[in-house]
């Protein structure tokens, strides 16, 4: 099985025995560098890669992604804060560690889920519950080694799309900063299909290439 992404068509295709068997809507970055003042959007770089792993991703680059999706929360309105469960099972402060106010989280949840409340778990990680990582296999041994590094671009869903999916609404995918955005139900289907198994070949085509 191989995965092929055609960024110019917002299309991800599964190839089995040299035949494209299924297709999914998927959005990469723009064809040229974007204008985001914090982190400019970039193209999803064409090339042949190897799927490495699926993981709950965190990064300090984006405040809301410092916490893993699904982390338990405790509302602390009396001190204008929300606590989140640390790996040590102790509690950390969203206000101190993430730098967002309680009312910001209540509003964000309202934007996504239509209820002004603090959710019981963290549903704001920008990479969704699972990110699928890949790397360029420079020595063709299908093992991440030597000077090879995981790409900063990855497959993932977005919190907004996760909310739309959870509420049974139409999932409206938006372009990315360079990653590949998937619909939650397609991500789940592709995982079930085995398309994200480690060592699967993954090809990002050039923007002008069409299937």
């Amino acid at each position: 099985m191989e995965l092929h992404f055609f960024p110019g068509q917002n299309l991800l295709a599964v190839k089995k025995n040299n035949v494209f068997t299924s297709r999914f809507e998927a959005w990469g970055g723009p064809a040229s560098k974007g204008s985001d003042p914090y982190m400019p959007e970039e193209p999803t770089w064409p090339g042949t890669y190897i799927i490495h792993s699926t993981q709950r991703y965190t990064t300090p680059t984006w405040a809301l992604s410092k916490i893993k999706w699904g982390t338990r929360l405790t509302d602390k309105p009396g001190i204008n804060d929300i606590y989140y469960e640390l790996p040590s099972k102790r509690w950390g402060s969203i206000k101190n560690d993430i730098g967002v106010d309680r009312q910001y989280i209540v509003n964000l949840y309202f934007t996504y889920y239509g209820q002004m409340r603090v959710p019981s778990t963290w549903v704001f990680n920008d990479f969704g519950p699972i990110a699928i990582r890949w790397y360029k296999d420079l020595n063709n041994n299908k093992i991440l080694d030597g000077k090879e590094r995981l790409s900063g671009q990855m497959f993932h869903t977005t919190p907004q799309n996760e909310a739309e999916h959870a509420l049974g609404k139409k999932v409206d995918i938006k372009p990315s900063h360079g990653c590949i955005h998937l619909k939650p139900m397609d991500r789940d289907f592709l995982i079930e299909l085995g398309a994200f198994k480690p060592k699967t070949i993954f090809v990002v085509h050039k923007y002008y290439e069409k299937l």
Partner: protein
Amino acid sequence: MKNCKLLFGLFFFTISIFSVCHATPPISKKWYEDGKIVSSSGKKLQLDLQNAYDGLEYKNKIYIVGFKINSDGINTPQIVEVSEDLKEIQYWTFDSIINDVFVYKHSIYANNIAGKVFELTGDSWKEANMSFPENSQVVFSDGMEQLIVCHSASAPMTANHKGGCYSISPNWRYDFTWFDLAPKVCGGKLYTYENKVNGGIFRVLSLESGQVLCSKILATPPGNICDIEQKPGRVGTCFSCPRGTGL
């Protein structure tokens, strides 16, 4: 709590002499994040609010912004007006989250998270004929003409990351990306911190012109933006400041 919003009424003469936000008037009452207010005489009042996050004292009244939270955890946005003796209490319910209450041209205003602005007219809030960008907060008001509004970049990765500050009368604007460390008036100047993917840039702006008086690259955001001045040489002095800027 934003001390800079407490400088009105009898303090106008002070405002005209000093650069406003740094002087602190006597605070007759204190409010707490659990919705409690304590008067100067020690009298306590628990408001029907479970979360309070902004307050303003003006003309012997205190205005508290927060949420009433029901047993199912649903938050209802509220503004509460409390008289000086804590005896008269007025609650207003909003269908959107209020960010801020402030004074402008001798009237009380509030802005919601989407940028809609309301004016307190008599006993009700009416939509004002001005609006702010999303996620705005008023960081400076002289109570009369000048208002400095800062709007943060949205935190989600796929959202708009353009932020900045602007002033109404005199008019100026300065665009920069900030997320959580809100610009603040310290010593009569506007202190800002622009977020970069690695570290950021600290800047001091003139309240009158919006001109950058000095700037410095910082590896990490400061805990309190005003501390940069208070700890010269530790967090980082503004090395490129011209003489006479007080840094």
